[in-house]
């Protein structure tokens, strides 16, 4: 296990280094100058130059990069050009919202997706299988931005059941930060109204985002479950009188989950990608919206800060997946 963690840490260094270089280069070949957008409607050349100097944008690229790396080494992600605030502080403000959304969507997707995938596999080529697969394929096929907007139209505009945007009604004050997850913080805060309001705000975005992930999980679980059910141990179990249901739940599922977890875990990236669109549609104040605005606003330090944090998250997720597989699959413990 120590070796595993060590390998992941080595990977972290490589990935972070690679990501920082790529992002840095990409950010700086982006056509567009953040200062030109920020300097006001009709800035003079002197003003533009003075702003560029203030952000260090007048220095040669390698110098900028080395400065960036050394700051990064000290845990300093730099200052946002758009907001003039430290990036670390901004990400701390936006990241919990995304994490909350992604986590809830992910839990929803797992909670519904795994049973559906199992059922589809068990009932392969029956009506239920077709319905579940159609439902699943719908999730990966519906354009998230369109689906989200249609949801708003139905559940907010027509029925008035759910709020359309944000994490909390504006009249309510946000719960005191403990975890950054509003629904947990609100629960600790003990304010029922806030808690329910937070949940309501979570429903649409997490369902929209979760549906995509759910579809992915159903497909994956179905296929590895089919694989597991075709294994000899299943037949041995049946021949020894163990019930189909028992075998599905106790034998096949665990074996089917091992390959699924790896793939589902690695799809975290796509979930974050989906969060970009979800956050845009539902005005969710998270990283996705933050990075989109940063890319469009050419806020180089912010773009880089975001990717570094995401790369970090990616490596951590990888480690978690490894640990989970390690605990599920005795063969990895050789």
């Amino acid at each position, binding site marked *: 296990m120590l070796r595993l963690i060590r390998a992941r840490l080595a*990977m972290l260094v*490589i*990935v972070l280094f*690679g*990501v920082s270089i*790529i*992002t840095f280069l*990409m*950010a700086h*070949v*982006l*056509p567009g100058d953040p200062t030109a957008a920020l300097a006001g409607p009709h800035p003079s050349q002197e003003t533009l130059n003075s702003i560029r100097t203030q952000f260090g944008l007048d220095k040669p690229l390698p110098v900028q990069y080395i400065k960036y790396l050394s700051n990064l080494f000290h845990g300093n992600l730099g200052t946002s050009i758009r907001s003039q605030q430290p990036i670390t502080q901004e990400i701390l403000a936006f990241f919990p919202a995304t994490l909350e959304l992604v986590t809830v969507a992910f839990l929803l997707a797992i909670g519904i997706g795994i049973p559906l995938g199992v059922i589809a596999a068990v009932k392969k080529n029956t009506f239920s299988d*077709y319905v579940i*697969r*159609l439902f699943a*394929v*719908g999730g*990966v*096929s*519906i*354009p*998230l*931005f*369109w689906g989200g*907007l*249609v949801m708003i*139209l139905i559940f907010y*505009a027509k029925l008035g059941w759910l709020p359309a945007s944000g994490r909390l009604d504006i009249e309510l004050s946000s719960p005191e930060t403990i975890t950054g997850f509003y629904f947990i913080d609100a629960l600790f805060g003990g304010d029922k109204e806030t808690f329910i309001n937070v949940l309501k705000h979570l429903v649409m975005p997490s369902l929209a985002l979760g549906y995509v992930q759910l579809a992915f999980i159903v*497909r994956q679980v179905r*296929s590895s479950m*089919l*694989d597991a059910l075709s294994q000899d141990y299943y037949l041995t179990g049946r021949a020894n009188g163990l019930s189909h249901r028992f075998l599905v739940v106790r034998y096949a599922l665990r074996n089917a989950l091992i390959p699924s977890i790896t793939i589902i875990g*690695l799809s975290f*990236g*796509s*979930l*974050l*990608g*989906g*969060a*970009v*669109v979800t956050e*845009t549609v539902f005005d969710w104040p998270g990283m*996705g919206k933050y*990075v*989109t605005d940063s*890319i*469009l606003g050419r806020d180089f330090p912010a*773009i880089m800060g*975001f*990717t570094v944090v*995401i*790369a970090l998250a*990616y*490596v951590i997720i990888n480690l978690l997946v490894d640990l989970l597989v390690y605990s599920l699959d005795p063969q990895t413990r050789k």
Partner: protein
Amino acid sequence: MKAIRQLIRNPFTRGAFFSLCVIAFVGIFSPLLTPYSPIDAKPEDRLLPPGHLHYFGTDELGRDIFSRIIAGTRVSVGIALFAILLSALVGTFIGSFSGFIGRWIDQVIMRSTDVLLAFPTLVLALALSAALGPSIVNAALAIAIVKLPIYTRLARTQALSVSHTLFVKAAKTFGVSSPWIVRRHIVPNLLTPIIVQISLDIGDAILLIATLGFLGLGAQPPTPEWGAMISTGWNYLLDQWWYPTFTGAAIFIAVIVFNIIGDGIRDLLDPKAGE
């Protein structure tokens, strides 16, 4: 042919297969099928509701939405195909050499794919197409790059297993050139998994193109690209519902058809997922 017969036999893929034929037909013959020019603005016909003159109504510049959706089929589906095929081609090439040659080259290539995978797909596509400048070709390039690691890894895994087989080892000892081995022995073995992956990725690519278009980074107006059409059309949803609705439905149908076909092909070709 056999594969098509099998696809048609399954009720799950039958409908999708025929829809695919329709989409292909529409894509190929779109210039002949559009009742109006999908490009020319006619301000006097702005925002007309659906009717017998304009089946899906008109947009903010008085263009026939039906015609634009038809013309958009070629753009959106065509570009998605182009992006995925490009990615598969380049990825297979890099991956098979990486697996075949091994050593430090393999290490460098694999760590590079690690790095690429650490970016969320859409964010990378977003940044890339922003960096390359917004155009439909650049969006396709961005998608090709985003999808590259998948194909590289797939090809590498296959190449590794093939290069350990006897005939490749033998070929190596006889001093046969590497490109020859890759072309004659590794690539044919790769075809099946790559085709399966391609069929699964096309739907996703159509969505990515549309999403980039929605975020303003895809096709340039007046190109009738579905995502860009929804992006503009959404502002009209409340009073001119037809504008974003039909366009969204077009994307949904195209993507779901490709996904069902992709699932079907995987079931057929991938022995693990099949019977």
